[in-house]
Structure formats: structure tokens, C-alpha cells
């Protein structure tokens, strides 16, 4: 068992009260698993990713636990968490384009970062060069400044840098969102390759783009308004989703071969509820075609088949 998250609650402090961005989330990620998290914006997927490595100053840990390889992570304690960062949990941020200090050569920055972790740069240099080559970069990039690299190159440098100390868990937040389709494919392939080489034990890939997840992820977790909706193998989520939200989300994707001149591509009516004071019960209720009285009570996130969990009263 690599990662196990139990009833995790993370709130944002705002002037109008706490926004319950993550409201009781329980799931597990197995060794070697690449889990994708999908959902529309504001559903809590980025909050979940941040909560696992570094809460920002507005975020508050309101309850629940995170355990990695059997050890509990002190996610609310920034100082204590530092020991776990990079070596055990690592991150590829949303902003890989600007993730590196513009006035330091890349090699120098890596050297500084490794020194802070008591690792000698010269010791890892051969491995670093090997991995750069693996993602199609010349070792010469270490002598360059970030501005001298293209967006895709920076993304790959960040990928290599983030995984250099072989973390147990890698969190990739919108890794491919800023890239064009061909770079997207290269990065997606590199992610899988890194897992296959054992550079990273397991991975959480956060994106709003389900088609990317389909290329990369073994399992997909669908989130809605701070709650989990459904988790299943990627293929199952695409082909036979059970949760009405997942169905509508998948239904909103264009399909190859379909023509959209005559038929309208369906979106999902309505908006997610405010998380400042979320309604009780199932949060998708207001937009759900299958909603009935029972939905006023929150549905449990339970296993309906091997490796397939759903939170919906309409699914037996």
C-alpha cells in the first residue's frame, strides 16, 4: 500500500468563512499505480494535490490523515513535512514554465536544492544526465538558464528534477495543460516510462483533460464539489461509468468519428454548489437527472465491483 488517505478535510480560510474545498475524502493508491484525478474546476483536485505535499498559507487542515508507505505524513506541520518532501513526496507543479529561478543556471539550481537535502551533486550527476537523455534532453541544458529552453523542454527538466531522488509518490498537477498536443504526448509517455523504470513508485496526475488521463492513468478518480464521485480503472471510467456525473462528464467529450454538425454536444446543466456552505446530502443532487428523496442523505463511497467505487444511491 503506497498512499492511503482517510477522511481528509482541507478548508480555505476566507473573509466570509471557511471554504470546504476538500470535505472528507478517502481513497488509496497502490504501489506502481498511476491514478488520475478528474473533475471540473473548483472540485478540489488541486487542493487535494497540494494537501499531500504543501499546504499554502490560506489552507487549513481540518481533519483526516494521510499515510505514505505506512508512515503518517504531518501535512499540517510545514516544518516537519519538509523532511518528507522531495525524497518521499514530490511535485510537478501547474506552473512548470516558471518553476525555475530565472537568474540561476539549471544545474546550479539543482546543486543548491540537492545540497539542502544533503545530497552531493556530483554523486547524482551521472544519473541526472541519464534521465535527461531519457526524456530527450542533452546534458548541456544544465549549463543553461531556464529562459533559454522552450516550454516543453522546461516541463521535461522539471519532470526529471522532481523525480531525481526517486520519490514514493509524485503529484503531477495539470502537467500537460500548457503544452501543445505533441509535447503533451511526449510528457505523458515520459510519466509512464518513469513509473516503469521505478523512478517513481506511484503517481497522482491531476487534470481537467480526461483524454490525457486515458493515455497515462491506470485508474481514474472523479471528484465533484469537494467529494469523491467515482474511482475505477481508466477503461471502466471511459466505457462503463456508473456515477451520473461521470456519465455526463464523459458524455460531454467529443468522440472521433462522430459528426457534430447536426447533433449538439451536450454539456452539464447548472453549476456546482458553493463550498462556503455546501448543502447536505449528495452534492450533485441539484444537477442530477436521477435525483430522488434518498439523495438528501450523503451517499457512501462504496465498492460496487473489484476496484470500482461509487458514491451514488442510484447505483446498486
Amino acid at each position, binding site marked *: 500500500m503506497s498512499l492511503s488517505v482517510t477522511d481528509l478535510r482541507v478548508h480555505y480560510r476566507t473573509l466570509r468563512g471557511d471554504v470546504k474545498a476538500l470535505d472528507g475524502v478517502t481513497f488509496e493508491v497502490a504501489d506502481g499505480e498511476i491514478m488520475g484525478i478528474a473533475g471540473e474546476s473548483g472540485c478540489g483536485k488541486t487542493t487535494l494535490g497540494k494537501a499531500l*505535499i*504543501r499546504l*499554502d498559507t490560506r489552507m487549513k487542515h481540518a481533519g483526516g490523515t494521510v499515510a505514505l508507505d505506512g508512515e503518517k505524513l504531518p501535512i499540517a506541520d510545514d516544518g516537519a513535512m*519538509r*523532511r*518528507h*518532501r*522531495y*525524497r518521499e513526496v*514530490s*511535485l510537478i*507543479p501547474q*506552473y512548470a514554465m*516558471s*518553476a*525555475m*529561478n*530565472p*537568474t*540561476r*543556471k539549471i544545474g546550479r539550481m539543482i546543486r*543548491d*536544492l540537492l545540497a*539542502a*537535502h544533503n545530497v552531493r551533486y556530483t554523486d547524482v550527476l551521472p544519473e541526472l544526465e541519464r534521465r535527461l537523455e531519457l526524456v530527450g534532453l542533452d546534458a548541456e541544458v544544465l549549463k543553461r*538558464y531556464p*529562459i*533559454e*529552453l*522552450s516550454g516543453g523542454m522546461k516541463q521535461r527538466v*522539471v519532470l526529471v*528534477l*522532481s523525480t531525481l531522488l526517486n520519490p514514493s509518490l509524485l503529484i503531477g498537477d495539470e502537467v500537460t495543460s500548457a503544452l501543445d498536443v505533441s509535447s503533451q504526448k511526449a510528457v505523458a509517455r515520459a510519466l509512464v516510462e518513469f513509473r516503469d523504470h521505478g523512478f517513481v513508485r506511484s503517481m497522482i496526475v491531476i487534470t481537467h483533460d480526461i483524454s490525457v488521463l486515458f493515455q497515462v492513468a491506470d485508474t481514474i478518480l472523479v471528484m465533484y464539489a469537494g467529494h469523491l464521485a467515482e474511482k475505477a480503472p481508466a477503461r471502466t471510467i471511459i466505457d462503463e461509468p456508473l456515477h451520473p456525473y461521470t456519465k455526463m462528464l464523459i458524455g460531454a467529450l467529443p468522440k472521433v468519428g462522430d459528426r457534430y454538425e447536426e447533433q449538439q454536444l451536450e454539456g452539464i446543466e447548472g453549476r456546482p454548489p458553493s463550498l462556503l456552505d455546501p448543502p447536505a446530502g449528495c452534492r450533485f443532487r441539484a444537477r442530477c437527472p436521477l435525483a430522488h428523496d434518498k439523495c438528501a442523505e450523503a451517499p457512501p463511497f462504496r465498492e460496487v465491483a473489484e476496484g470500482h467505487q461509487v458514491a451514488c444511491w442510484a447505483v446498486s
Partner: protein
Amino acid sequence: MRGYLARKTVIYGLTFVVAVTLNWLIPRLMPGDPVQRMVARAAVQHPETIAAMTAYYEQTFGLDLPLWQQYLNYWAALFRGDLGTSVWLFPAPVAQVVLDAVPYTLGIMIPAILLSFVVGNSVGAMAARSRWLDNVALPVGYLITAMPYMWLAILLAWGFGVALGWFPVAGGYDFGMVPQWSWAFAGDLLQHWVLPFLSLFLVSLGGWAIGMRNLIIYELESDYANYLSALGAPKRLVRQYAFRNAMLPQITGLALQLGTILGGALVTEIVFAYPGLGKLVLSAIQNQDFFLLQGTLLFVVIGVLLANFVIDIVYVLVDPRTRTGLTGATA
């Protein structure tokens, strides 16, 4: 880099030519006639004597020639290091008078600029991470930055000079002393130096501190700082990076500020009757001394241009982004 230097040199060269031309032109556009003034000083009544003296002085100063020739002569003399003869301190050469005053001005300006830059930036960087210091440093910084140089100088002169009597309020050294290499004279020099230095130093200090504080806060919120923290980098490393990057706009600020600081130094010197370039400019204007005014302003112009040139070079060395931009490398 070489192309950049060449371009900069051309720009600075052009600026220099324009500055020197204006410098030559402005005294001539001022009302009043210096030769008349010198003749008047001699207090002669005889019209022929007056005519003879006027002719002599005009020839001595080259004022009998047509303007364009005066201009060319000015340039020629400039390259020979000859800035002309002072009218006010006739017959002392201008170059000598100015060179005597330059050390005093540099002596208060260079330490004031460098120290206020270093101290201000350090205080600002510390204020960015300490709420207590921030609450103290920020209002104090705004207060002293908003003060005009001469006003602060007068306050200091009154407070430390008149009320407390710790420091002398006027002059570069005691009038009873003769400039010489001795400990007593050096001590006296230092005592006279403190107040003019302090007023310049204090006014610049607040601006640097406030700027640095804001820049550091901005840098610590930036993506690279967040990424480093997420990868478990200690606060010290993140702050080190933030400080270095925040210094870049401050260096540009220094280049922009030089002229203002210099203006402040000149005014401060006048308040303290400090024998630097500022006092010289004032005396030259009061005495209609074309050549002294020209010479002094020339030194000021050269000083500002040189300092800006140095900062330009330093900036290219510390910020790689400007470097690649000018060699035309593709990102």
C-alpha cells in the same frame, strides 16, 4: 557582449556631446556679463581704462570671438584638459578649483549611496519576513523618504549641531586649521563630514528599504519560490534566491536615482557650507563665473554618465535574461 558594449559606448558618447554642448550654452544664455563684473570690481572710472580692461579680459577668456569659434575652442581646450580660468577666483584655473572640490562631494556621496543601498536593502529584506520590524521600518521609511534633502539637513544641523553641539554645522574643516596630513586634521575633517553624509544617507535609506520589502514579498510568492518550498528547500535557500532576484530592479533603481541623489548632495552641501561641487555651483552662479559653472557641471555630467555606464555593465553581469536578449539567442 561586445556589440552591446559598442552600442552603449556610442549612446553614452552622444549623451556626453549633448551634455557638454548644453553645458557650454547655458551660462551664455544667463543674463549678465561677467567681464563687466570683473571690470567693475577694479573700480576704475576712466573710460579708456575700462575699454582696455574689457578688451583684455574678453581676449583672455576668448569672448571676443564669434560664438561658433568659442564653441570649437571650448571642445579643443576640453581635450587638452583646460577648462579655462575662473572669473570669481581669477586667475585660478577652473580645473584646479573643481578638482579641489571633487573629493568633498565624492566623500559624502559615495559612502552615502553605497551604505544606504546596502543597509536599506538589508533592512527591507528583513522587514519582509518580520511583522514587528515591518511595522516599524515601513512608516519610518516612508517618513524619511518623503523628507526633502535640505529640510532634513537643516533638522540635523539644528539637532546635532546647534542643540546638542556634537558636530560642527558648517564647512569642510575648521577655519582655524590648515589642510595637511595629520591625525588632528583628519579627525576634524571626519567631524565635519558626519552631518552632510547623514542627511544624504537617511533620505536614500527609506526608499531602498520600502522597495526591497515589496520586491521580496513579491518574489517569495513567485512560482519558483513555491516550487522550491514544495521540494523541501529550506527557507534560507528560497530567501537567498528571492533576495538576489529582488536586487535586480533595485540596481536599475540605483541608476535612475543617481541624478536625484547628486542633486540632493549639491543642496546638502549648500546647507552645510561644505566645500564640494554644490557650493561651487552656487558661487559660480552668484558670481557669473561662466567657466567655473561650465567646469563644475562638466564634472557632474561625467560622474553621472560614468556611474550609469558601470551600472549598465553590472546589470548585464547579474541578470542573464538581459545577456541572452542582446546576443540574440533564442529561448
